[in-house]
């Protein structure tokens, strides 16, 4: 397979086409607009429909319609626009439809700014919109992983009939790296649940499945428990014997990985747990770490700790959980090592 050299956003868009996404409706916002730009040209060429929606609200609801009709559909946004998607995501989850969403995280609340950040962690992992639902959220740390996870997200969305999210950030989205794509898939949109006109059969209603699901509370509880049990993904790097285990995802996890190798070369026992799914959070990754473990240190591109809370929950706070917040600046690995050493010296 030949390698292409591509921007994270462009690669993400191409991966969606390869996964047989046939509908995309979205609205421009930095730093994800290249996804729209790429798809406006390449999705129609691949036989799909690209629509620049009048708002994120319209975009996500177009996705709802296309998904209800059985087609693989996606929209993408960032920060303020991602807030607007939440209404539609809640409805899509409620109707138990598959669809894929992208949040290319940018910094700050409100308008904020367009720098890289990881401050949408709560909205990504807690469901974002109203009601009882969860979104399977994948956090890629490279352009290649973005491509791999987009394909997986479409498959898992269909498997569980639930929205999936690609939680990217401005760094991963804007940088270019070599990438290898899978072959284009073919998918049949004529799922038994999809609306396509009753065609002589019974008519179908796509609405909240709550209205016609027996023991709904138990059902929905079990659905998400199953996902939680089966879909945790993570990468663990020299965590088993570490004194300090770093926890980071996305762009900051790459710097942490560098920090681990720098620290190990100096005899400092640093390790890393890198969540690939931020929901379900990879709680299993924290099982059975070595007795020498003294603390966790989350490394987050935000002004307030977010990921830290999930580490606390996953570990029952039996070990201290610290956080290092780098705001909108990608820290150097030396900075991270220093933070870890300071914890050891406490």
């Amino acid at each position, binding site marked *: 397979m030949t390698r292409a050299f591509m921007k994270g956003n462009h690669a993400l868009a191409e991966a969606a086409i390869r996964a047989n996404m046939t509908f995309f409706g979205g609205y421009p916002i930095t730093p994800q607009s290249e996804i729209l730009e790429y798809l406006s040209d390449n999705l129609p060429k691949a036989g799909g429909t690209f629509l620049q929606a009048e708002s994120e609200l319209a975009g996500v609801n*177009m996705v709802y319609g296309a998904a*209800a009709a059985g087609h693989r559909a996606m929209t993408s946004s960032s920060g303020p626009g991602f807030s607007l998607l939440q209404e*539609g995501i809640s409805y899509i989850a409620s*109707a138990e439809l598959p669809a894929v969403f992208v949040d290319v995280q940018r910094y700050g609340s409100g308008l904020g700014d367009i720098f890289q950040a990881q401050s949408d962690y709560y909205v990504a992992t807690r469901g974002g919109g109203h009601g009882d639902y969860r979104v399977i959220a994948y956090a890629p740390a490279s352009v290649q992983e973005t491509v791999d996870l987009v394909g997986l997200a479409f498959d898992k969305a269909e498997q569980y009939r639930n929205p999936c999210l690609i939680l990217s950030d401005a760094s991963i989205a804007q940088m270019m790296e070599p990438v290898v794509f899978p072959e284009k898939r073919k998918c049949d949109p004529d799922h038994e649940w999809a609306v396509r006109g009753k065609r002589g059969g019974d008519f179908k*209603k796509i*609405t909240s499945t709550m209205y016609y699901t027996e023991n709904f509370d138990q059902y929905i509880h079990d659905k998400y428990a199953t996902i939680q049990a089966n879909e945790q993904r993570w990468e663990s790097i020299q965590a088993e014997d570490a004194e300090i285990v770093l926890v980071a995802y996305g762009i900051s996890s790459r710097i942490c990985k560098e920090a681990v190798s720098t620290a190990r070369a100096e005899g400092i026992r640093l390790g890393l747990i890198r969540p690939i799914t931020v929901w379900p959070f990879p709680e299993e990754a924290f099982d059975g770490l070595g007795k020498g473990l003294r603390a966790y240190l989350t490394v987050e591109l935000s002004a307030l700790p977010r990921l830290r809370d999930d580490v606390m929950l996953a570990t029952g706070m039996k070990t201290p959980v610290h956080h290092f917040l780098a705001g909108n600046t990608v820290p150097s690995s030396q900075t991270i090592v220093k933070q870890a050493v300071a914890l050891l010296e406490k």
Partner: protein
Amino acid sequence: MTEKRIPKTLVEDNKFCPGCGHGIINRVLAEVLEEMELVDMAIGSVAVGCACLMIDTFGTDWVQAAHGRAAAVACGIKRVRPENFVFTYQGDGDSLAIGFSETMYAAVRNENITAFIVNNGIFGMTGGQMAPTSLPGQRTTTSPAGKDPSLAGQPLNIINQMRQLPIAYLARGSVGSFKEIIKLKKYIKAAVTNQIEGKGYGLVEILSPCPTNWKMTMRGALDHMGDNVKNFFPTGEFIKEGVHTDA
């Protein structure tokens, strides 16, 4: 004269209040879809409001959208399934207040869908609050002293909003009398035909009584429609097959 049978597409009794125009509109729409042999290929998009009660009783495929977003949902459906007949069915609050943007932009893009907007001048399902279409002076639960246009604006006339757009079909009908219901059916048929022929967006706005929230008898409601509502919302065909008419 032939028989007049209740369309089979109406699979259950409707759930609307006494005298509600939705029941009539549901039946007329069912007749049109049956006569045009479209029931098997129809997909409706409703959102929230009294209109959405029909997804249990009107036997076509349905998608229920978030409040206001039915047009965007219909657009998503039609774009991936162009072979289907795709329509929206919404009240005035749903389509013209919270969903004004989605409603307008479906028309701006001349989406090949058909929109039915039921204008009864009030939010019915939530118990009679003021709608964008409420008349000046109209008493509602959120305008107890009567709608004040200096505060809430004049009634929103969607036909006027859409008249300049390059859409296929635009009409306003009414269920306020037998004759108007007969005309309404022609409008609905014309709008549906435009989609089937690929000509694009069709909208039929339908004036409809809400005796319950207007707090009127049926006769009072019908008189109010004839005497007041139609002054603000004249009926007729405004765009036919993409051509503006003088209606």
